């Protein structure tokens, strides 16, 4: 171990000198702390990883090396980041990291995931007024303290994540907008606070979050547990809402970028150009705020802000048939520098399926390799460290390029995926089918299914069936909250055990309600959206998961806290549903009113007639000629006829 440390120190020194020598901007280079060394460990061994077929031994070696950055990171937390541009106030310890993960997908698409993390050692709950902001965006900080938010998760997504083609995303999100918030226990009127908060967020993100009201908000009883540290999990303080119809575009991206310390001026954020980002198969941007532990003892908490952006590029359509992509091709920008405020700025490229470069070729080649446990699997990544000037080479810009050699290769089927559809015909009733696939060959695991259905689809919970492998699979826990017309949606939560290698089908019948004519959307025949079901699962992991969340890991691998080593948490969203409702004739409310009122008037008239008329014997009515004759006779003084 001692020898190891020695070699590490020497390498550190070497890097130090080298960077001094190469770079004129030594300011940033000197920031290189222990952490950089963690990735640089033993580049020769790492380089060999790509070549040697006997990988197991090398992986073990890396595992030993991995132990080093852990205590290095723990040390690092003790003193503030040196050499930052702005003068730090002593009580404000904050830290910013940025990271881009690129995963070539088996379908030939490219998955790029940005993560920006700001950790701030502050506490809004103590009541002391926080007025000095450095890296943390002030707009969000004020919202958190004003509305006593403990956790806030918001995501805007355009497109649907195709699990069967693309595997699991690092951070799942449903199509449209999703918002879930845990409030502090001190909030008395949670609903009013929630309403206000959605309106404020609607302004911050330029989104239609103000359409979140009681008709699409639910309080899940078991799903959406706090992701940060929390002492109480009373679901009265939780609110969850989705807007499946929300369309995400540039106007949402701009305010999102403004929350970054460097904006879109430097660092990875220069790649975020809307004309390219929205020309993609899938786009999702999110903001997650939660309290996290400051150190492994967890004596005090700090606030973590994670901004993530996931995008899947379809390179078949844009690549003119050529199987090749680069940063420039994807984002129409290359990287020239890291964000100067960032303590770490890295690009990871998933090369697990490409140990011999038989699938694709990566250039410029990087000597750095790293391993991380992501989604129950150990993955290998090529790492580009942007804080190192050497990364940018002589051209002072980094343009990572991948050239595909073959498109073969089978993707590991995701252990859990789900789909959902509406069955039935006509406009009166229907049936929602949710299929959950457990692809694990021999392990069964429990999943928690959450369904939030708008009130205008009246669910009949007595028709709920759960079957797997042709047999009835009784959920061990069901929480059902029926809807109230125009007030609240249905909420159905259940805990189902998925048998190994099986499909579990959940069906429930519904009836379509007829709305008032003003309640329809402007395009009623387009249909009405029903938000995705959410499936939370603890999936058996093939490798041991890291249970220590303070341990230094790549950002994308440590979002969901992990309680035990044998399984990992996964959240899967199904497709949103598009359901047609019966529509009245919109053209003639006036006619309907006239008609109906006439009916009532005629009915009333008839009854009034019956009630007021008295019957009496009537004298026969003399004819006109006779009457005239009588008048004349009267004038003559003769008795009438």
């Amino acid at each position, binding site marked *: 171990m001692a020898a190891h440390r020695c070699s590490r120190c020497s390498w550190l020194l070497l890097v130090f000198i080298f960077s001094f020598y190469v770079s004129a901007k030594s300011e940033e280079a000197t920031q290189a702390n222990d952490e950089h060394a963690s990735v640089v460990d033993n580049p020769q061994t790492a380089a060999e990883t790509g070549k040697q077929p006997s990988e197991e031994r090398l992986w073990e070696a890396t595992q030993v090396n991995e132990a080093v950055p852990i205590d290095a990171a723990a040390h690092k937390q003790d003193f503030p980041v040196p050499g930052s541009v702005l003068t730090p106030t002593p009580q404000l310890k904050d830290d910013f990291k940025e990271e881009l993960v690129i995963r070539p997908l088996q379908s030939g698409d490219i998955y790029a995931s940005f993560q920006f993390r700001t950790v701030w050692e502050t506490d809004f709950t103590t009541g002391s007024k926080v007025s000095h902001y450095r890296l943390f965006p002030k707009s969000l900080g004020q919202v958190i303290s004003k509305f006593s938010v403990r956790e806030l998760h918001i995501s805007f997504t355009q497109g649907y994540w195709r699990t069967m083609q693309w595997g699991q995303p690092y951070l799942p999100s449903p199509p449209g907008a999703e918002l879930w918030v845990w409030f502090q226990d001190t909030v008395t009127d949670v609903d009013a606070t929630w309403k206000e908060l959605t309106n404020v967020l609607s302004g911050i993100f330029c989104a239609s979050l103000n359409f979140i009201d009681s008709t699409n908000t639910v309080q899940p009883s078991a799903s959406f547990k706090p992701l940060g540290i929390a002492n109480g999990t009373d679901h009265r303080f939780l609110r969850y809402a989705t807007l499946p119809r929300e369309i995400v575009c540039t106007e949402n991206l701009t305010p999102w970028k403004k929350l970054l310390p460097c904006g879109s001026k430097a660092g990875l954020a220069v790649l975020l150009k809307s004309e390219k980002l929205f020309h993609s198969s899938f786009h999702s941007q999110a903001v997650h705020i939660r309290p996290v532990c400051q150190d492994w003892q967890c004596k005090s908490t700090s606030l973590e802000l994670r901004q993530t952006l996931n995008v899947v590029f379809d390179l078949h359509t844009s690549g003119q048939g050529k199987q090749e992509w680069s940063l420039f091709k994807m984002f129409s920008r290359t990287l020239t520098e890291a964000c100067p405020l960032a303590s770490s700025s890295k690009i990871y490229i998933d090369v697990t399926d490409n140990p011999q470069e038989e699938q694709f070729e990566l250039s410029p080649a990087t000597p750095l390799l790293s391993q991380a446990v992501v989604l129950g699997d150990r993955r290998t990544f090529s790492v580009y460290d942007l804080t190192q000037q050497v990364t940018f080479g002589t051209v002072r810009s980094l343009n990572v390029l991948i050239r595909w050699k073959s498109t073969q290769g089978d993707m590991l089927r995701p252990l859990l995926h789900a789909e959902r559809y509406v069955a039935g015909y006509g406009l009166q009733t229907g049936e929602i089918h949710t299929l959950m696939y457990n692809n694990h060959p021999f392990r069964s695991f429990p999943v928690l299914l959450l369904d939030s259905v708008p009130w205008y689809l009246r669910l009949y919970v007595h028709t709920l069936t759960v079957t797997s492998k042709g047999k009835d699979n009784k959920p061990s826990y069901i929480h059902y909250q*029926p809807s109230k017309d125009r007030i609240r949606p249905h909420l159905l939560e259940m805990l189902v055990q998925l048998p190994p290698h099986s499909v579990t089908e959940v069906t429930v019948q519904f009836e379509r309600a007829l709305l008032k004519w003003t309640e329809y959307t402007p395009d009623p025949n387009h249909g009405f959206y029903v938000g995705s079901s959410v499936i939370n699962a603890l999936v058996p992991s093939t490798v041991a998961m890291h249970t220590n969340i303070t341990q230094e890991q790549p950002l994308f691998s440590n979002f969901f806290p992990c309680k035990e080593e044998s399984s990992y948490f996964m959240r899967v969203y199904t497709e949103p549903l598009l359901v047609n409702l019966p529509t*009245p004739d919109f053209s003639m*409310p006036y006619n309907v009113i006239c008609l109906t009122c006439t009916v009532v008037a005629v009915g009333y008239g008839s*009854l009034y007639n019956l009630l007021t008329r008295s019957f009496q014997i009537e004298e026969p009515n003399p004819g006109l000629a006779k009457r005239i004759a009588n008048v004349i006779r009267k004038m003559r003084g003769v008795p009438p006829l």
Partner: protein
Amino acid sequence: MAASLTLLVIVAVTIRAALYRSSLAEPIAERVEVVSPITAWKRVIEGLALLDLGVSPYSGDVFHETPLIIYLFHFLVDYAEITFMLADVIAAVALYMAVKDFNKQVFRKQKFALEANRYPADCLELIRSPTEMHYIPLKVAMFYLLNPFTILSCVAKSTCGLNNAVLALFVLTTIKGNVLLSAIFLCLATYQSIYPLTLCAPAMLYLMQHQYIPVNPRRASFWWFVVQYLFMYLGSLFVIVCLSFFLLGSWDYLPSVYGFILSVPDLTPNIGLFWYFFAEMFEHFRLFFLCVFQINVFFYTIPLCIKLNPEEHLPGVLRPAGLFSFIPSFMAPLDLRWKRQLQLLLRHNFALQRSADPAGVGLFLRLPEEGAPPDLRAVPEEEGRLGGDAGAEIKTLRGRNSPGTLRTNRGGKPASSDGADSYEDI
């Protein structure tokens, strides 16, 4: 007579049992023409399922039946088919007995009047003959049990069948002159769906005359009887409401059942008019029109009682007072049946009634049908089953009646005549 009634019951039960076993039972139960949001069996089952899940059935907006129905079907859910068939049979037998009794009274009075020579010579043809009277009760029972809509409702297990059984028992006990039972059954019917409240006044008037109490507001005996009856009625209503409270331990059911009936938030199409109107109503007029429509149900009852002599025209009073059969917010075809049964009782004085009733009923029935958006669910042909008896009768009566001394001013009321015509001619 009893033999033919038994035969009728056996035939009716066989038809129902056969339909229950057939594949038609399920599609019938789904039809909005047969069930309404309140009476749908599917919703009753849902209420029971919610109760099993530990959720109050009234916390949602699916179940709107009364707690007693839950309690009843909590035990009888496996015997639901038998329960509904039994309810139909009880209703038919009760009507049969009620009509028999009523006819006896009418016949007696007719005899006295004939003896006293009070009828004008040219209306003797309207006087009922004993053979005619003999078959009326059986016809009433038959029209109740074999009516396709009764059968369909029974097969769909619409809880309306139970309400009708209670109402039939109310009619029977009222005609028999049993004050206490009349009040209790009326209370049960009111508890099930507010609208039978309107029957309170005619029932009181009828019972008073039955007991030879003069209908005179200046007499103490009149008020004493009113107080007695109201006490029985409201007392049993109070007991039953409290019982419901203790069954579920909350008052949730009051807004969910009665608030639902009165405020019509559910626009599920049925053969009534409310959903059609309120789906297209401007929101700021909604409350106004809601009040106007609901008042219409209640406010005819007193004037009708004053105008029509309840003993002579009990069915006549029951019927228009039972406007709840076509105005209510959530109407099931079973409600409509009441008119038919009672019309049969009215054979002898139909000529007097004609102008008011068919006009209103005809229009009310026809309009939703004509106006319903075609893409929604169609409205049934209520008229189809009229061809047999009542409709034909209206025609013959009018033919006979036209030159008569009791001529009504037909020329002055084109609307109602048209309504009557169209009603019959379909």
